[in-house]
């Protein structure tokens, strides 16, 4: 039975039986080609998204399979982009899943010459401690006799690549801590 299947499947035989005597088409089709499964079709779900590069705001469809992003391409429904993406937008899969991404917290101690690893929670605690300390050191109740109620001990830069919700929390938290030097790319 197997031999027969094998022989019938042999493209040379198929050349004779399948109407492709020159062996350039149907007869030469391989198993792989017969069972192509594009990941846009086989994805478990398609998640609606927005391109993270520039501010045009092109729509993206994010294809997910087995809890992994397997492909990202333009969302044809978008009135902004009509499914199209530029080279940067087209590289979003590589941006989000590529090998250049770091997934570990890295720490460089003062005067250190290389990175060390640090557990995330420990890093968060260390950062919180430093913020409290620096904030206090740079605290100014008054400047030139006028109430300022602020700290100039720490600053932040960034936000143009972040979500509105993230910017909101950053501004809210840092302002409540008395920081004024909160800036982002919009100024640059």
């Amino acid at each position, binding site marked *: 039975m197997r031999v027969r299947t094998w022989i019938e499947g042999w493209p040379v035989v198929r050349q004779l039986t399948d109407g492709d005597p020159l062996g350039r088409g149907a007869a030469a089709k391989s198993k792989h080609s017969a069972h192509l499964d594009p990941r846009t079709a086989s994805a478990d779900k398609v998640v609606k998204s927005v391109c*993270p590069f520039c501010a045009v705001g092109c*729509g993206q469809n994010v294809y997910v399979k087995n809890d992994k992003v397997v492909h990202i391409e333009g969302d044809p429904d978008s009135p902004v982009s009509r499914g199209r993406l530029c080279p*940067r937008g087209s590289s979003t899969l590589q941006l989000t899943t590529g090998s250049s991404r770091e997934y570990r917290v890295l720490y460089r101690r003062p005067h250190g010459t290389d990175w060390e690893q640090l557990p995330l929670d420990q890093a968060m605690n260390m950062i919180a401690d430093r913020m409290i300390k620096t904030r206090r050191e740079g605290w100014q109740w008054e400047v030139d006799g006028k109430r300022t*109620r602020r700290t100039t001990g720490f600053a*932040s830069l960034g936000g143009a690549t972040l979500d509105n*919700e993230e910017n909101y929390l950053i501004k809210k938290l840092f302002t409540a801590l008395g920081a004024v030097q909160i800036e982002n790319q919009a100024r640059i």
Partner: protein
Amino acid sequence: MAECHPVGFQWVMEAKARGAKVIHVDPRFTRTSALADIHVPLRAGTDIAFLGGIINYVLTNDKYFREYVVAYTNAGTILIEDYRDTEDLDGVFSGLDVDQRSYDFHTWQYEGMEVQAASGHRDLEYQDKAGGGNGRSRRSVHHSGRGEAHGSGGVAITGVPQVDPTLQHPRCVFQVLKRHYARYTPEMVSDICGVSVDTFLQVCKLLAENSGRERTSSFVYSVGWTQHTVGVQYIRTAAVLQQLLGNIGRPGGGIMALRGHASIQGSTDIPTLYNLLPGYIPMPHAHSNEDLDSFIEAESPKKGYWAQMRAYTVSLLKSWWGPAATPDNDFCFDYLPRLTGNHSTYETVMAQLAGECKGYFLLGENPAVGSANAKMQRLGMANLEWLVVRDFSLIESATWWKDGPEIESGELRPEDIGTEVFFLPAAAHTEKDGSFTNTQRMLQWHHQAVEPCGDARSDLWFTFHLGRKIREKLAASTDEMDRPILDLTWDYPTKGSLAEPEAEAVLAEINGWDAEGSPLSSYEQLKEDGSTACGCWIYCGVYSNAINQAARRKPAAQQDWIAKEWGWAWPANRRILYNRASADPDGKPWSARKALVWWDEDKAKWTGHDIPDFTATKSPHYRPPPGATGAAALAGVDPFVMQADGKSWLFVPAGLTDGPLPAHYEPQESPVPNLLYRQQRNPVRQITAMVHPHDRFEPSGGEPGTEVFPYVCSTYRIAEHHTAGGMSRFSPYLAELAPEFFCEVSPELATERRLEHAGWATIITARAAIEARVMVTERMTPMTVAGKRLHHVGLPYHWGHSGLATGDPANELAHLSLDPNVHIQEVKVLACDIQPGRRPRGRARDALVEEYQRRAGITERTGTEV
């Protein structure tokens, strides 16, 4: 646009397919030029002269849209007698205080009225209104600039303006404008900009022909206009022109900013900016005993939608401090830290160098490559106690202590750098929920697709949990200093194994709710009494009916071209701002082929394709009763509802730090003298705070030493990369498309300096020397400026020492002379020299720069003149 916003450019092509003519004005011939009908290469830094020339053409040839100008602009408004124009004072306006490098705008007022600064600047008048204050505090307010506050308009006027509808009064804005631009003749434009008179007139004709009642033209700009010491005035010049041509608020009109980051608009609306609170409410300045009432009194106008500023501010304070914010404690207004001048990112660098600022967060930003004078950025970071970098990859701003240019040169050793560096991997947009606000003010929600891997977390997670930890650590504190953080509402629901905060809960807070906790649907519902909370008043409505409006995705094919049901645009989902102006004063479309919104007499309301940016039931014939305030104070013919007079402003009586009308000034560094005025540069450009040994300026405009830096260089982007490269140089598919830093020069310049195509060149300014591969191309064209040959050196700025595609950052060359309104650096024009071959290594690199400084006779005073 085809370079940096290719997908947006499809609409330019669409317009072209319908017969639009595309004019591209840019020093270099780009991908956009390749498809434009006319490419006009002009000298970098001369756009005001070019646009001013068109204004002059429009005025002298009566090409303006008279009905529009008379009805909707302040053209007829009469100015006080004290006003002196650049015509009278050879390049400066009245009110210039040379010692303080600032203008007093009291002489720029309307006759018989008191005009207050636009929202960002009203504090300047605090002394006048709330009493007290001294010169010093006033200066600090002034220097803070805060031009972003114009993002939502806003101005305060009291009294009734005197208007001459015939536009004949010698002191009316129209006549002042005419006189101001009279000297911007085609010949003068040609001399300054290096554009032939023919080409210039062709542009004038095309633009004028394609504007008016039946036709509209649109302007598109990017940072090519903003990154100048007169950046705000560049855009102002375009605004003046578009008002004259009747191209604002109408379909096919407008001035479009193409912004470079996914949510850079959002990060201005909900600002991670020092001088703003959400919704363009200004951050308060330090004054004696200032309370909420005097803040509102000083900042808020009485007419237009900004009149409700108290409601917006109180609602914001309620959303931040919740129950702790009560009428008795001024809704915790005192919890807001106070400004004492300019605290912009470049001042922060100076504060780092001075040892005042010791901690620094970099949240998806790469200043070691992307900010002006990148070396100063790195030296600032090297003087910190701690630095937190959150990004996808190990960008230059995370690794400068290890392999940065100063390490390479031996100027710094890692062992000597005390900065403690935390690198925290960030989550991608596919790994978190949230909204981006695009360049059209439209919020679009992106849904989380997967959980982030490893230690990668969203910035929402980072900020929330950081705040949570700080609050825990300070929980026992009774220190008054800690009240704001302990009283803060900080109890967002979280989800999943990572305890990710619910982004939609944050969006709901931004949107706001009433006393019962129900989502609000419009900022008109906001109250002054503390019964409503709203995190950003202009975003109010994005969560109306508890529905995430930003997540709406009705396919484009199932709705009209306005696509109102895709995402949500502020304010109130209006897609074209001030669209009342698309109809004539009677409420009828100016033209049957330019109908956007119009007054429906039968239904007695405004209707149309877009959501009217106007009170829906206010008839065109409505006239405000005396003493009316707020929106009711605007008439049915006042389309510019955020303005206190409902008019668009050809002349800006208050709100800009550097003049009521745009005037051409040469850049901070220019080989060319100002041909229009004796005043070489913007007299109030922001410079003094930045004088530093690593930030020397070059001589300009024929001063001795100018010839040492004979070329103009300009930094820009190309299609293959994204900004400072953190999101593109680490991707192989993008890196291979533009693998190395290169400079673009004309064949003429290559011959003059013996530059070899595909070889190396060294570019030198008073700050730095960098090397680049050479692209000799006819796309770079020499120009004749003031009778002399002038060459540009084109510098895409994407590269740094990390990633797959590497090269020197062009921003090493830049200085820190800033626009006084918004503190943006002038990286679009610098004067430089270029020499064949690679740059020296190690200490010799600095020696080369010092040699140039010596030859040009540069001191700490050079270039700092008013």
